[in-house]
């Protein structure tokens, strides 16, 4: 799987003075599920649009499935945009067949696939319903199906989970897994870290148009310090003196005044700290050591930018 489904080199996009994307390099191996993470306004959608050759980059080169423009291989690409919308007056099955048709599938096959997909993902009864009669979530599912009905090798899903209830989020995860099993390369962007964590092989973190991280989830987790949270009758200094502890922060919590976050050295074992606490007679009311989640990674790496973006 050394072949690259997508490669971006030094890609930038400027809108006048606004630098939406700055010299981004991305390499997505064929068959990977690649998470595209970043706060609002980070440049995710612009990057995706450039990958699809809907907008031209100001600088840099893009290669999609070996072609210089996604339009050259558009029959092999599936795309679900961030903001969802469909022709309101069209039937669900017709829309799926229409978009598959635009991707080069012949009429008959397109129709058959439309019905198959609708049935497989629980929309059989709505196949001949007009889009305007469907709920928002159902419409969104139809749109996802429309973007993959031509069985693309390379799928780009921009925020596929937004607006879906938990059940349908699960269905969406299944769709992505099914696609991956069928051999497709998938890029999807999301705000919901748990989805990325469950599904992705690799993630790309982007903020303010700049790439911040690109790698596997394990690699990402190593990016942030190892932490232990404990509740103890002990002062800051006493905890700081424990072996392997780099930093101690009081957790701001109205209910508990005795909650502490301990940042521990890389390689240090949480187990070791627990034992030392016992040995030193520190009374622990709780001891919590969790692997950092992708959420922690996200907040740690781009939290500041995200808050700024929100203020803007």
């Amino acid at each position: 799987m050394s072949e690259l489904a997508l490669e971006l080199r030094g890609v930038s996009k400027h809108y006048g003075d606004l630098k939406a994307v700055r010299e981004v390099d991305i390499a997505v191996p064929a068959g990977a599920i690649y998470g595209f993470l970043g706060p609002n306004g980070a440049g995710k959608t612009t990057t995706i649009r450039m990958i699809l050759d809907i907008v031209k980059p100001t600088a840099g080169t893009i290669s999609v499935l070996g072609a210089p423009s996604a339009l050259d291989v558009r029959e092999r690409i599936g795309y679900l945009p961030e903001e969802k919308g469909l022709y309101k007056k069209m039937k669900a099955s017709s829309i799926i067949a229409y978009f598959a048709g635009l991707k080069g599938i012949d009429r008959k096959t397109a129709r058959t696939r439309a019905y198959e997909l609708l049935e497989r993902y629980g929309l059989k009864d709505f196949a001949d319903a007009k889009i305007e009669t469907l709920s928002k979530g159902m419409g969104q599912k139809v749109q996802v199906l429309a973007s993959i009905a031509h069985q693309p090798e390379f799928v780009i899903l921009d925020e596929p989970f937004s607006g879906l209830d938990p059940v349908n989020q699960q269905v969406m995860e299944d769709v992505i897994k099914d696609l991956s099993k069928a051999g497709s390369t998938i890029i999807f962007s999301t705000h919901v870290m748990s989805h990325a964590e469950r599904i992705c092989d690799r993630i790309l973190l982007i903020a303010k148009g700049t790439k911040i991280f690109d790698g596997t989830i394990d690699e990402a987790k190593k990016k942030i310090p190892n932490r232990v949270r404990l509740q103890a009758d002990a002062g800051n200094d006493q905890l700081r003196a424990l072996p392997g502890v780099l930093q101690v922060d009081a957790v701001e919590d109205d209910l508990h005044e005795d909650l502490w976050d301990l940042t521990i050295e890389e390689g240090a074992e949480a187990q070791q700290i627990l034992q030392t606490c016992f040995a030193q007679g520190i009374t622990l009311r709780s001891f919590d050591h969790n692997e950092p989640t992708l959420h922690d990674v996200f907040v740690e790496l781009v939290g500041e930018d995200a808050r700024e973006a929100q203020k803007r």
Partner: protein
Amino acid sequence: MRNALMVAAREYAENARTKGFWIGILMVPVLLVGAVFVMRWLASDATPTRHYVVVDQTGRYEDALQRRMDLRYAASAFSSYSSWVQRNQKEEFKGVEVDLESMPAMNLADFNADTFLDRLIEEQGEEKFEALIEPGGFDELVEQARPRLVETAGEFEVPRRFFRSLPLPADLGIDPMTAKPDEVAEALKPYLRGEKEMQVDGKPVQLFAALIIPAEVDEHFDPLPEGETESSGVIGDVADGIRALTGANQPPPVQYWSGNLADSDLFERLRGNLDRELRQSQFVKRGIDVGLVAGVQRMALPIKKLDPDKETGKEEVSQADVLRENAPIGFVYILWISIMQVASMLLNNTIEEKSNRIIEVLLSSVTAWELMAGKLLGIAAIGLTMLLTWIASAAAMLWYWASPEAEAITNLASVIFDSTLLPAFVFYFLLGYFMYASIFLAIGSICNTIKEAQNFMGPVMMIMIVPILTMAFIPKDPHGTLATVLSWIPLYTPFVMMNRAAADPPAFDLYGTAIMLVFANIAMLWLCGRIFRTGILRTGQPPRFKELLGWLRRGD
């Protein structure tokens, strides 16, 4: 190309499948036919009978007026009877079809209803109509016509009178013949204002008008007494043996009282008949033969309209020529309506695609050019469907209502379709459509809502209204400065050249503007394509004009 055709097919299907589209299309012929019926109804049934009284203190006019009004009524009833017979005639009695090509061009003045009726009375003789005035007057005529009529003909409904004179009310409290005209008017005012009502056949009706003719109104017109001349103390100036009174010497005028100022039909009729009666009586008083005068007045020099552009020996201008000359006005109108209608569809669904964000998915599958081409073609097909439906429904209606009128329209239609106007229409429709459609498409691409689009539509409408304003004038001076200048402005070429089409425009104008129109179309498609490509993905405020220029230059 395959993609463009798929987009076109979807675009066509989406519009052609909606009920609204077909209702919108069929509304046009229905409205046109409806308008004809409504006009007819307004002219006949909707106008109430006008009741009036005449106070004739001279005693010389009332009977003549009544007789004249009766004759006019009888003549108009008779012409209703003639068309009733014509409509219900058996096939073998139907006359020869009207051939517009050989029928001399008619004079518009001949269509005036009153002139027509007067001529009918004169030609057929007053006696013929006298018999028809009374109720049951038509019975004999209907019986005579019966054998020629089809079984389903039914009864002839004698039209009602639109004007009806009433005897004066008994409770005026004055003697109308001797009282001063102003006193008579004063006594009648409560009736004219609707405060009191008149009785007709036991039913109350409102008095519509009153005509008061003062006793001395026309005496000065009488011939001068034997031996008197202008210099012998006669009041007023005398010219050609007729006195003209001025200033204080003028007799009191005839008074026409009516609260309704808008409907002047009765006034015109009464006035015309008063003058007619005055002249008739003066002829008699001066010993002039009335019949002779009438005969002389009927005299007319034979006159023909000829067109030097027509084939030798067939230069006479026929009714068909006149229709052909004026038909472009109708074509321009249809052209304008249909282009507007389909181009707005394009505007609406572009905005729909944009505001629904469908556009992004589309653009990941097709190029902006393919999308634009597909939309233009799809909606062009919709436009052609619309025109064909109009033609088909018109044909269907003519076939369904096979009647003399329908035959006349069929003749008219064949005159128009046989000419070169139809190919010209299709040519100008397509090129005009592509020009305006690309503008609308560009506008749609930069707007997120219809509301935003309306700001741009304002100026476009101002530009588009010009051909409608000039539509009626251009055929009168088809090669004048206005027509020529407008022809060379590509935005107006389709309409103005269509307008001039029947008048054989010079080859230079005809082909020159056509070539220019083709190039203008290409340029417009290119320009609007650039705007479309950039605008379609843009969100937020529509761009400023300066920004648009930037898009055109850079194309990013």
